[in-house]
C-alpha cells in the first residue's frame, strides 16, 4: 500500500446518514482502510435512498449522496439485529484501530458494541460516537439531524436578511461539520496513541460541534448581553459587502467584499468612477458602513448589466475580493478547480464515471488521492471476512443464508 499518513490504520465504520460517513471519508482520504458495516435488514442508509440517482434511475448503488461521501471505503453486510453478527463485529474489532458510529446515544451499548466491551477485545481501541446531543445530559435521547442542529445552535437565529426573520442556511451544515470535527478528534486520538500507546473513547455532540463555530454571536451576548442580530450579507465593519445582481436570470449574482482603503479605491477605479473614493459619504470605512444602502445601490447599478465573471475578473485583477455565486454546474465546470485536480472521476460498476468532489488538501510528502469509488452495498463482505477472520466460503455462505450477512 502507498505510504500515506494513515497507511496501516483500519476503521470499522458503523456510521450512516451524512455526518458519520463524512468523518470516516477523511480517514480514507488520508490512507486508512475503512470498512463500512451495512445491512438490508433495517431501513437503508438514507443516503442510498434519496435523489439524485444516476440518470434518475433509483437504486441503492446509484445514489449520488452515498457515492460522494463513501469514496475510498469498503462495504460489508452485517445484520446487527442478530447475535451472530455482533460476534462477527467483535472479531473484526480485534483487527481494527478505530470504531466509529453516529447512532443515537446508547445504541452501541445496547447492541453489545459499547466501548467498555470493545476495549476488552482490543485494549488500545479508539472509538468515537457522534450523536445529536451527546451521550449524557437531559437531551441525550433527542433526535438530531443537521437542520434542527442549525436551529438549536443559533445559526438560524443569526442568519437572515437585514431586519428580517430568522433564515435557514441552505445546507445541513452541522452534519459535515460534526464529521470534520470527528475526523480531527480521531486524528488527535491516533496521535495520542502513537505517543503513549493508549486508546480512548470520544463522545461527540453534533450540537456542541456547531456551537464551536458560533463564537462571534455567543461572545456578543457574553460580553454585552445583546443578541447579534441579522444583517444578511453585510459585515459589522466592511462595506461594500454583499451579493450584487449580475446580468442574466435570477441565479446570476456576484459577491463583492471590500476590506481596506486600497481595496476601496481599486473598486472605484474598476467601476470607472475613481472620484467616488473621495465622495464625502464614502471617504472612510466608518462612513461607507453608515451609508451602506446608498453604496449598495451604486455598486448594483454597475454590476447588474455586466456578466458576473467579467465583474469578478476585473475586480480580482485590481485586488478586490469578488466571486460569482456558484451553482453545482458552475463548480463542476470551473477551470480553477479542474486545473487543481480537485474532482474525482473513478469508474463505478453501476454508475460509470461521475464527477465527485475530491480531497481539499494537497500534501507534498504523502500525496493523497481517492483510491476507489464508493462501494456497492456489501461488495467486500467475503473478502474482508476471509482475509481478516480466516473464514471459509462455506462459513460465509452459511451466515449469509441464515440472515446474518444481509
Amino acid at each position, binding site marked *: 500500500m502507498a505510504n500515506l499518513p494513515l497507511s496501516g490504520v483500519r476503521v470499522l465504520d458503523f456510521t450512516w446518514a451524512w455526518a458519520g460517513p463524512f468523518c470516516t471519508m477523511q480517514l480514507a482520504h488520508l490512507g486508512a482502510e475503512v470498512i463500512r458495516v451495512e445491512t438490508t435488514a433495517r431501513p437503508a442508509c438514507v443516503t442510498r435512498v434519496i435523489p439524485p440517482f444516476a440518470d434518475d434511475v433509483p437504486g441503492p448503488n446509484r445514489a449520488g449522496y452515498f457515492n460522494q461521501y463513501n469514496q475510498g471505503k469498503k462495504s460489508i453486510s452485517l445484520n446487527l439485529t442478530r447475535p451472530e453478527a455482533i460476534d462477527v463485529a467483535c472479531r473484526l474489532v480485534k483487527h481494527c484501530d478505530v470504531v466509529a458510529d453516529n447512532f443515537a446515544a446508547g445504541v452501541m451499548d445496547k447492541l453489545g458494541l459499547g466501548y467498555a466491551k470493545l476495549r476488552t477485545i482490543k485494549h488500545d481501541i479508539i472509538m468515537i460516537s457522534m450523536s445529536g446531543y451527546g451521550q449524557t445530559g437531559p437531551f441525550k435521547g433527542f433526535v438530531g439531524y443537521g437542520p434542527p442542529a442549525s436551529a438549536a445552535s443559533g*445559526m438560524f437565529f443569526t442568519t437572515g436578511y437585514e431586519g428580517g426573520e430568522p433564515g*435557514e442556511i441552505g445546507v445541513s451544515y452541522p452534519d459535515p461539520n460534526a464529521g470534520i470535527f470527528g475526523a480531527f478528534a480521531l486524528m488527535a486520538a491516533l496521535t495520542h496513541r502513537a505517543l*503513549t500507546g493508549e486508546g480512548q473513547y*470520544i463522545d461527540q455532540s453534533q450540537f456542541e460541534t456547531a456551537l464551536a463555530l458560533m463564537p462571534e454571536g455567543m*461572545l456578543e451576548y457574553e460580553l454585552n448581553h445583546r443578541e447579534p442580530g441579522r444583517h444578511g450579507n453585510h459585515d459589522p465593519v466592511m462595506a461594500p459587502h454583499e451579493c450584487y445582481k449580475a446580468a442574466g436570470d*435570477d441565479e446570476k449574482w456576484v459577491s463583492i467584499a471590500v476590506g481596506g482603503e486600497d481595496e476601496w479605491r481599486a473598486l472605484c477605479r474598476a467601476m470607472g468612477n475613481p472620484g467616488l473614493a473621495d465622495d464625502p459619504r464614502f471617504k472612510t470605512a466608518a462612513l461607507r458602513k453608515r451609508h451602506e444602502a446608498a453604496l449598495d445601490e451604486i455598486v448594483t447599478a454597475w454590476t447588474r448589466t455586466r456578466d458576473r465573471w467579467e465583474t469578478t475578473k476585473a475586480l480580482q485583477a485590481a485586488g478586490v475580493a469578488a466571486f460569482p455565486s456558484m451553482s453545482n454546474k458552475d*463548480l463542476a465546470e470551473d477551470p480553477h478547480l479542474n486545473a487543481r485536480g480537485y474532482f474525482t472521476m473513478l469508474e463505478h460498476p453501476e454508475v460509470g464515471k461521475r464527477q465527485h468532489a475530491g480531497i481539499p488538501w494537497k500534501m507534498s*510528502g504523502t500525496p493523497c488521492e481517492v483510491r476507489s469509488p464508493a462501494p456497492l452495498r456489501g461488495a467486500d463482505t467475503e473478502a474482508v471476512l476471509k482475509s481478516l477472520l480466516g473464514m471459509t466460503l462455506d462459513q460465509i455462505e452459511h451466515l449469509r443464508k441464515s440472515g446474518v450477512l444481509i
Partner: protein
Amino acid sequence: MGSQSASPFGAIKIVECGEGISAAFGAKMIADLGAEVIKVEPPGGDLTRRRGPFPDDKADLDKSGIFIYLNANKRSVVADLKRPEGRELLHKLLAGADILIHNVAPGDRAAQGLDSAALRAAFPKLIIAAISPFGETGPYANWRGYELTLSNAAGWATLSPGASPYPELPPLKCFGSQCEFQGGIHAAMVALAAYMHRLKTGQGQSIDISEQEAVAAMLEMNFMHWTYAHRETSRLGSRLLGPWFISDTADGKIFALAVEEDQWKRLVELMGNPEWANDELFKDRIARGQNQDALKALMGEWLSRWKTQELYREAQNKRVPFAPINTMRDLYESDHLAERQFFATLEQSGIGAVKLPGMPSKYGATPWALRRPAPKLGEHAEEVFCGELGIARERLNDLRKAGVA
C-alpha cells in the same frame, strides 16, 4: 478539564502566523489539547484584535471576544515578516517547531519567508499547513477571498436560505466565518496526520489547504444533482419534504420538522389528530413538502399556543425532531449544556471571567483545557526571543526600536 502536565500533546510545538480566523482556529484546536503555540503577529496585531465584539463596544486590542476565543492557550510575539530581521526571527522559531500553521496569501508567501518549497528545504522535519482561499496552485491562486466571497465561490451561499419564494433577494451567507473555520479545522486535522507520518518516518512536508475546496465538499447531495441528473441548484423552489419550516410560538420560534413517516404520525397524535391531517395534500412527506404553505398555515395555530422550550421537549419525547430557534441567551442558559459542562470559563486579564464555547468533542484520555488567557500583543517577546531563542536583550530592544519586533 484535564491537567496540563498529563497531555502528550505538550511535546508538540506549533508556530502560527497570518491573520484572521482560519490559521488561528486550526492552531487553537491543537493548543487546547496541550500543544505549545507561539503566535507570530504583525506589528499592528492580528486583525481579529480589532473586530470585536468588545466589552461595552469599546475597541481594545486586548479585549476582542473573537480574539480571546481563538487565542487562549497561546503566547504572542510580534515580528514584521515584511522585513529581513522579522523573517530571521520567524526562521529561528521554526527551527524549534514541529508544525507551522498559517494563512498568508500564496502571492505574499515568498516575500514573508513562507514559501512552502523553501521552508521544506530549510526545515525538512517541519510540517507546514498553509491555508488559503483557493489553494496555492491554479488560475485563482492569487485571487482574494473573504468569508462572503468564499461562501459564494464554494457554492454554499447559492443554496441559501433554500426554498426561498423571493427571487429578488440574493444568495444568503450563513452567520459568522464558517469558511474560515473550515479552513482551520481541515488544516489542524491534516497537520496531525502529517505529524503521525513524521513520527514513523522522520519526514516533514507541506500541506496546501483550499477553503473553497473544503466547503465545496460539504454541500450535501447538491453537487451530485448536476453530475448525476443534470439539475442545477438554486436557493429558490420548494422543500424536498415537509413539514420543514420555522414558525412562531407563544414566546419565540420553533423549527418544525418530520423526516420519516412514523415521525409525522406521532406529530399528528401530538397535535390531537386534527381532521385536516388526513387530507390528500399531506399524504406523504413529498406532498407535505410541496404543499408546505398550506401545512404551515394549518400547523401554525397549534404551534403558536406552545412555549418554545416546552414544545421542543414534548415533541422530542415523542421522537419528533423539532428544535428551538435558540438565541445566544438560550444557549448560555441551556440545562443540557450546563450538565455536560460544555462552557469553559477563562480568567481574561482586563475583563474577568469569560464563558467560552468549550471542548467540542469529549475525549476520554486526551486532556482538553484552557490553561492560559489570550495573550496581549507581543506579551511573550522576551520570554520567547531572549529566554528560549537566546537573542540578547539589547538586540531585542534594537529590533523593537526599528519596529520589527
